[in-house]
């Protein structure tokens, strides 16, 4: 990795990709910036408003509440999915047909369109036709996601854990598989306890993939839209309305281009900051490893 050649002609290889991604990323981003400083009423009717929309958005109490809910949601699912994912990866079979079967089963939730995931859980938790809703009712638990905010939250978290823990598990599983068998043999000779094996052999190998897992899960949970939209529609009230849904309602539902663009930019800056911090961390972890002469 360290002996790359310095050659600016490599730009030629990157150029086609750059044109395509720029078409999809830069032109829309510029447009969003343009919208954010104007009141856009129609194709040829817009008024310059300066920083007004940014001021409104930063002080909007509904958005601040959505932001708070979003942070809470992201932290809760990270706190559940990361340990659970590690646990599952540790108990997954390592070879043979069982390993393949478990792999395919575990990846299933990741391959379902996001709004179908919402539909599946909406059906599953309905009191009249859904197994879970019906079962809880039979057990005498008053469970209703359209009335009770607590139930709605619990269901969304359960759905997200169902949907995305497989990703964490797969990442950890692939990290574990890269540990040479010799390490385990050495540990057996030393009669190391299971905890010692986990702490000193498995966890260090997992650090890299875990950073990727946290990064991906954090970012995806920030973008969550289709699943809660189908499951609860953001309700009851606005108790499960997360950031992207507030944005989509504003931009599509109410056609408020200016404010929603200003909001998008603030949102994007936050995401940019967080991904930069994570990216720098990953890069420095790798650099430290290289300088130690390791993997």
């Amino acid at each position, binding site marked *: 990795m360290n002996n790359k050649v310095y050659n600016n002609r490599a730009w030629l290889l990157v150029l086609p990709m750059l044109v395509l991604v720029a078409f999809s990323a830069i032109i829309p981003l510029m447009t969003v910036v343009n919208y954010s400083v104007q009141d856009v009423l129609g194709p040829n009717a817009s008024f310059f408003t300066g920083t007004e929309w940014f001021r409104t958005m930063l002080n909007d109490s509904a958005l601040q509440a959505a932001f708070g809910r979003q942070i809470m949601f992201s932290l809760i699912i990270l706190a559940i999915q990361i340990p659970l994912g590690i646990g599952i990866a540790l108990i997954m079979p390592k070879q043979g047909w069982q390993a393949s079967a478990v792999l395919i089963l575990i990846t299933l939730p990741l391959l379902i369109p996001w709004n179908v995931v919402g539909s599946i859980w909406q059906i599953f938790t309905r009191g009249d036709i859904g197994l879970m809703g019906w079962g809880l009712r039979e057990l005498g638990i008053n469970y209703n996601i359209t009335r009770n905010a607590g139930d709605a939250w619990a269901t969304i978290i359960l759905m997200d854990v*169902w949907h995305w823990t497989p990703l964490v598990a797969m990442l950890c599983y692939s*990290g574990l598989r890269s540990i040479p068998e010799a390490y385990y043999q050495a540990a057996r000779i030393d009669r190391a306890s299971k905890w010692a094996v986990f702490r000193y052999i498995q966890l260090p190998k997992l650090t890299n993939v875990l950073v990727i897992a946290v990064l991906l899960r954090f*970012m995806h949970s920030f973008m969550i839209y289709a699943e809660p939209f189908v499951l609860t529609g953001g309700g009851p009230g606005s108790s499960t309305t997360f950031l992207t849904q507030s944005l989509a309602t504003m931009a599509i539902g109410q056609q408020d281009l200016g404010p929603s663009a200003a909001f998008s930019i603030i949102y994007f800056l936050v995401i940019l900051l967080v991904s930069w911090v994570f990216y720098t961390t990953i890069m420095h972890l790798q650099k430290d490893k290289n300088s*130690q002469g390791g993997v």
Partner: protein
Amino acid sequence: MSYQLENTQQGEKYNTIFSKVPAAERRKRHSRSRLRKRLLLGTYIVLLVLPLYWLLNMSLQTNSEILGSMTLWPQNLTFDNYIGIFTNPSWYMGYVNSIMYVVMNMIITMLVALPAAYAFSRYKFIGDKHLFFWLLTNLMAPPAVFLLPYFQLYYSVGLFDTHIAVALAHCLFNIPLAIWILEGFMSSVPKEIDETAYIDGYSFPKFFIKIFIPMISSGIGVVLFFLFMFSWVELLLARTLTSTDAQPIGMIMTRTSTASGIDWGTLAAAGMLTIVPGILVVYFVRNHIAKGFALGRT
């Protein structure tokens, strides 16, 4: 590699703890822990599959049975819901549309991502690190931010409601992802191979296609799986950029709710069918997928 295992003091500590346990007892303990592992994994998989089983169960029932009583498996097995979908063009065209833009996206992404990933894995050039980071931010950018400009951009270039529009839009996050994973796979191929090939008189394109691509074919398979996955599950952009001719299946499914109530059976059958392509794809890459999830970096 400075794993603390070499630390003899610790090793001795464990030795003294474990040497008190006889070997037979230890073997028994081992098999018991194996059983416990299997049980835990089994429980997780049952919980994982349960919502999917319920969907399958509903898709094989008539609406009157679904709404009538709670049945844990179909009492009168019926395939009418599936037959209904396969005989109605407005339904099955949804699948055709989805598959068309997903395949287009996979082809476009691969064509531009392969050379770019090669450049990142083999060369240093001005701004390479910043370019790579910028690519990754696109992976993080919430599509909702770009919805309206996308609609207007594709409308103004006359691509609205075409498959290629959705395929190009999905490049936003699929190209960065592909480059990220491919770069990992390519970096694990020793550089000497490139050099030997050039000495042997291969030109760059010939080397790339004849030698390099076959060497990372498992990586390419895994990347195709990821491209399929993210393009197939995304609907926010796909929905915004289409109206009738290229409408994805996920959007057509919302049609099941009519004035007379929701057609649960058809909804469940359509949902089941959206899972099938994914199963096929994951089956083909099952042996390489673990490496792919670590982005080729293990």
